[in-house]
């Protein structure tokens, strides 16, 4: 119910305050990334961008981060992009395939398979850290992209969502397709996939963010700096006790660790919000 006059002005006031609280930490790190180390270390920090932006970003990209983290910023961004895309696309592919099998075919143990996938919701990495690590060692997956991606692409929620969506497809559509001689692949490619695009976009955004922001898993299965994600590398770069930390480069790295997922969420906002609110409830 829309309010009038004073009430609405107050609502704007609270929303602006809320936005400031929510956006300030991100704004702060962006501002810090445009100042010299000396300015950063002498509080309070100015509230406007400083003169060192070009210098900081150039130094960070041309080897500055490599000196403190051991690996260039390009490699860190590349690794994180590969992992985030691998997880998002992997999840969509295998959960669509599973949901397709469960909804459009009849075979023994069909629902048992569904429950087997569904129950993985209750087994997050955090509750089986040590034995999962052992599996990774036994399979030789430590420090590999496969090791970083594969164990994270099983998805109960995505399978559940696609199953629900596929079940709303009218029987008549499948009948018509079969009368016209369409097999499983044709039906999927020409009818089901185009209808699923909104759901796919929503899941893509949510899972891309999930992949980009992984922490515990990359921490466990990578030893070599070359395989670091940008989030892990950032953690390794920082020492609050050490006066030598090049804070200007840390701030640049923070901005670059935050920016890509924010862009994805903001630019794909329409699908993201719909997907989040409609799929997870």
């Amino acid at each position: 119910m829309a309010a009038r006059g004073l009430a609405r002005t107050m609502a704007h006031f609270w929303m602006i305050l809320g936005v400031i609280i929510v956006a300030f930490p991100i704004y702060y790190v962006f501002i810090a990334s445009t100042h010299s180390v000396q300015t950063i270390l002498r509080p309070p920090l100015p509230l406007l961008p400083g003169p060192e932006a070009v210098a900081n970003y150039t130094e960070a990209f041309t080897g500055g981060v490599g000196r403190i983290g051991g690996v260039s910023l390009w490699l860190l961004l590349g690794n994180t992009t590969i992992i985030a895309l691998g997880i998002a696309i992997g999840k969509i592919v295998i959960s669509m395939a599973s949901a397709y099998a469960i909804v459009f075919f009849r075979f023994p143990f069909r629902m048992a398979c569904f429950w087997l996938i569904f129950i993985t919701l209750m087994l997050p990495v955090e509750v089986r850290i040590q034995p999962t690590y052992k599996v990774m060692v036994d399979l030789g997956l430590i420090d590999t992209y496969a090791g970083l991606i594969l164990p994270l692409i099983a998805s109960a929620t995505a399978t559940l969502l696609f199953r629900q969506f596929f079940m709303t497809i009218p029987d008549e559509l499948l009948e018509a397709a079969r009368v016209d001689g369409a097999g499983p692949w044709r039906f999927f490619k020409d009818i089901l996939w185009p209808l699923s695009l909104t759901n796919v976009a929503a899941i893509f955004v949510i899972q891309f963010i999930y992949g980009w922001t992984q922490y515990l898993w990359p921490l466990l299965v990578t030893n070599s700096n070359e395989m670091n994600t940008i989030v892990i590398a950032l953690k390794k770069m920082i020492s609050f006790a050490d006066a030598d930390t090049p804070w200007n480069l840390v701030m640049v790295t923070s901005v670059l660790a935050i920016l890509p997922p924010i862009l994805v969420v903001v630019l794909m906002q329409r699908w993201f919000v719909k997907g989040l609110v409609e799929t997870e409830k």
Partner: protein
Amino acid sequence: MRRTVFPHKVLPWLLLAPQLAITLIFFYWPAAQAFRQSVLKEDPFGLSSTFVGLANFRKVLSDPNYLNALQVTVVFSLLVAFGALAIALFLAVQAEKIIRGKGFYRTMMIWPYAVAPAIAGMLWLFMFNPSFGTLAWPLRQLGIQWNPLLDGGDAMALVVAAATWKQISYNFLFFVAGLQAIPKSLLEAAAIDGASRRHAFWTVVFPLLAPTTFFLLVVNTVYALFDTFGIIHAVTGGGPGKATETLVYKVYNDGFVNLIMGDSAAQSVILMVIVIALTAFQFRFIERRVHYA
């Protein structure tokens, strides 16, 4: 029930194979191993192990460090879940009153969703770092002792703030959707009956939001329990002392840094029981939600 299906018998298994293989290799097998190790005791060289029944569990549950981690986790989770829910609900209610600029506010509110928990923690530590944090600076000028790197209470306040901040976006989106689903006629009826806005909120809006709130309560609890590992690891490392050591951080630390397998496995099993209980609880509410819709 679907009447028309494809007649293939082998194809569905091929389609299911990748997902089933991953769940069996990376989920069920390790989970079974955690159960097995939790009732075994390994010799110091890891060469042989003996069945010890529930001894590992008894040891874990009588360990003061574990009980401390349990207490830290409960305090941390309650503060984060209630803080993030209350702030998000308040802002969502304000957003509902606004006509122009709603979309702009929503766009601004969703940013933290995209920030990794570990980075959220680091951002807050940048701002509140005792030596150069811009927001720690006024505290010092006012003569307030503030050092999250040395004081347990300050450290807890910092990780709670970072974890809450990150979760506001998510809750906000759900509350906005929940508020929009409430029929306007109900609020008009309340207004005609002379109910004040505040009264109408608590007697009409809040009860109708209950399904959303319960759902978010479970999601926020799971988030506070598990997803905040990155914040703790990146910001405090469980310290100072053990002031911010949560259950998940302790499992990681015992199993990986201190290499105490039996204990770590028993802790994993306890965590598994917690997740199963929470998930079961969540799905009971989803069943209920269907009737509201």
